[in-house]
């Protein structure tokens, strides 16, 4: 490795030089507001440490790329150790930076090993692809955890809040998965239907005193009819053009809510929305006239967590309904037509499928679930305003579907945990958490370009042992 080593060093040195040049003004200087103007300070130590880390990181990467696994691992581990060590670096960010660089080198080194292992294990002896088996057990395991979780001591207020938030996005992801994953229609305005559902509940409950459970189906229907409304004009469009129009639709709904003050109370939003009740019992410390609280009904002391746990089970149930519905409908003609439409619209027409109706049903059904989720959101927050329904929400939901692997139900769960959960857990990272978030997204797209779970589960499973009419005929 003698002459090669020189080459690696040169390459790493060049990389470090470029990094130093790029970062010189960005990292090297820092401006301060001193009241009557700006002054600046030098941060050349930070810059130096970062450049050294980049030098060794690059060295480790090129060693790993050429198969020098052990030197690369040592380098990666050393960087990681420095990042994690109590040695005082000038900032926490530098600790993270150096540590992550080490992690990256280690990951890059063991990536081929992991790949080889996966390839060997891809088929278990019975011929069932291991990925499918894992996905199945993962699903059952996650469900069990989800059901039991609120009863464990883990379920403090912070965790439950986050769990409810994640489940809301799981449900939205599953709903959008019908439109994007199954039917292949790129919808960038999904949040519009979420908003319709939320405002349906907010208005019907505050203006007409209707309960959560009676509004829920109405909100779904309202959102579904908005889905049809959007569907009609965009049927002829495909791909990018469809995405642009749906994007516009999402914004139109938000702007209407913002400006139609008589209906929606505009930017001030709608407050004091009643929460959902359980057989008429409210989740609050004191019940309003003529009803009782949950704690009174059960004869237990009141705790603020009861409300959260109740909300948690509602959204869990709603999400499971969405999932169950999707799994079923995939086996029905309309669901199969959605998938076929995603694959090849021309072929669909040649088989007698009416593409117009098929797309409309996909839009309407997807919108309906967003409507359910929306009224849940309004009931949980007790206050909604147009600010909750911006484009970034649509983008996050779409990112969940795409990262999860289009059409994969379990992938949506993993992606929702990753996208919603991680930024919350990483709050300690402060301003850098969005950088970590972006990095995670980029890494997923590099290593799993078709999503976390790219495998498409067939809608029919044939068991050759039990059902092989043709072969048997030949033998008999």
């Amino acid at each position, binding site marked *: 490795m003698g002459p090669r080593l020189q080459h690696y060093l040169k390459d790493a040195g060049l990389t470090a030089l470029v990094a130093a040049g790029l970062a010189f003004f960005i990292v090297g200087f820092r401006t301060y507001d001193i009241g009557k103007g700006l002054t600046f300070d030098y941060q050349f130590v930070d810059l130096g440490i970062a450049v050294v880390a980049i030098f060794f990181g690059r060295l480790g990467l090129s060693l790993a790329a050429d198969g020098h696994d052990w030197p690369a691992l040592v380098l990666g581990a050393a960087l990681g150790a420095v990042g994690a060590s109590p040695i005082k670096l000038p900032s926490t960010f530098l600790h993270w930076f150096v540590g992550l660089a080490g992690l990256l080198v280690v990951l890059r080194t063991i990536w081929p090993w992991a790949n080889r292992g996966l390839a060997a294990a891809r088929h278990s002896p019975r011929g069932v692809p291991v990925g499918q088996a894992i996905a199945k057990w993962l699903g059952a395991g996650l469900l069990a955890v989800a059901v039991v979780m609120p009863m464990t001591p883990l379920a403090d207020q912070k965790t439950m809040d986050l769990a409810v938030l994640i489940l809301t996005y799981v449900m939205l992801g599953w709903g959008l998965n019908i439109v994007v994953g199954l039917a292949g229609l790129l919808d960038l305005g999904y949040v519009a239907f979420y908003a319709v559902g939320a405002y349906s509940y907010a208005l019907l409950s505050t203006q007409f005193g209707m309960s959560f459970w009676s509004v829920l189906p109405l909100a779904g229907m309202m959102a579904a009819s908005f889905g049809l409304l959007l569907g009609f004009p965009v049927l002829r469009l495909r791909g990018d053009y469809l995405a642009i129009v749906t994007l516009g639709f999402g914004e139109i709904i938000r702007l209407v809510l913002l400006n139609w003050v008589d209906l929606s109370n505009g930017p001030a939003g709608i407050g004091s929305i009643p929460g959902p009740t359980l057989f008429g019992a409210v989740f609050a410390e004191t019940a309003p006239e003529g009803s009782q609280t949950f704690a009174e009904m059960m004869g237990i002391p009141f705790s603020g967590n009861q409300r959260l746990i109740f909300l948690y089970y509602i959204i869990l149930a709603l999400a499971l309904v969405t999932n169950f519905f999707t799994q079923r409908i995939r086996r029905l*003609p309309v669901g*199969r*037509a959605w*998938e*076929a439409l995603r*694959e*090849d619209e*021309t*072929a*669909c*027409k*040649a*088989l*007698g*499928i*009416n*593409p117009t109706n098929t797309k409309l049903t996909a839009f309407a059904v997807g919108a309906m679930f967003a409507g359910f989720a929306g009224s849940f959101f309004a009931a949980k927050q007790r206050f909604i305003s147009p600010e909750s329904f911006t484009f970034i929400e649509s983008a996050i939901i779409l990112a969940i579907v795409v990262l999860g692997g289009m059409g994969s139900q379990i992938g949506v769960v993993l992606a929702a945990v990753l996208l919603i959960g991680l930024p919350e857990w990483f709050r300690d990272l402060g301003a850098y958490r969005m950088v970590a978030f972006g990095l995670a997204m980029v890494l997923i797209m590099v290593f799993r370009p078709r999503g976390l779970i790219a495998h*498409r589960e*067939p*809608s*029919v499973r*044939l068991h050759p042992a039990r059902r092989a*009419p*043709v*072969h048997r*005929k030949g033998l008999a």
Partner: protein
Amino acid sequence: MLEVREVATFYGAIQALHGVDLDVAAGEIVTLIGANGAGKSTLLMTICGSPRARTGSIRLEGQDITHLPTHEIVLRGVAQVPEGRRIFPRMSVYENLQMGAIVADPAHFQKDIERVFEMFPRLAERREQRGGTLSGGEQQMLAIGRALMSRPRLLLLDEPSLGLAPLIVRQIFEAIGRIAREEKVTIFLVEQNAYHALRLADRGYVLVNGRVRLSGTGRELLANPEIRSAYLEGGHE
């Protein structure tokens, strides 16, 4: 069965078909041959309603279908094996066949799929495999099988031999012959492989620059010196 009268089709300002007349009687195998760009596929697609004929009429079993959308034409007993096969690559063979039966009565699904598997045993072997992983010949078999699942009375095939090895081409044409004989399906076949198509067909039409240049029985056309020099010599077998 099928009457095409004076059909003219345009792509924007460009006229692809100049008043084509053509008949397919019930139970026949009729082929349409011609060079690249002669308008063969355009005619087949016009029969399916996309693009629409600008003038002229198309009648199926006496009823005018000129202005119907594609999916409604299919509901009237026409199945199409599109050019380039267009199977659903991410779906299994079985699911592809299910898609073919999506407009059919589910009562005879099991019987129909067994018929298809009997005709193409290769599909039975690969029924759980994804469509996109099949070989070209198998994909063509799947496309034909999928079209049959809707129990059509008229089957339209667009260049089923395209890009296939000679041995596979022969198998495909044999299968088409069996479909016509055993399933009593009327067949309209668009082909560049004039030799195989004319040998199989009862009658044939030759399309040149969007006009029917010649027509006759398969045997007559095979023997026609003009056809021989333009489409057969130096080509096949």
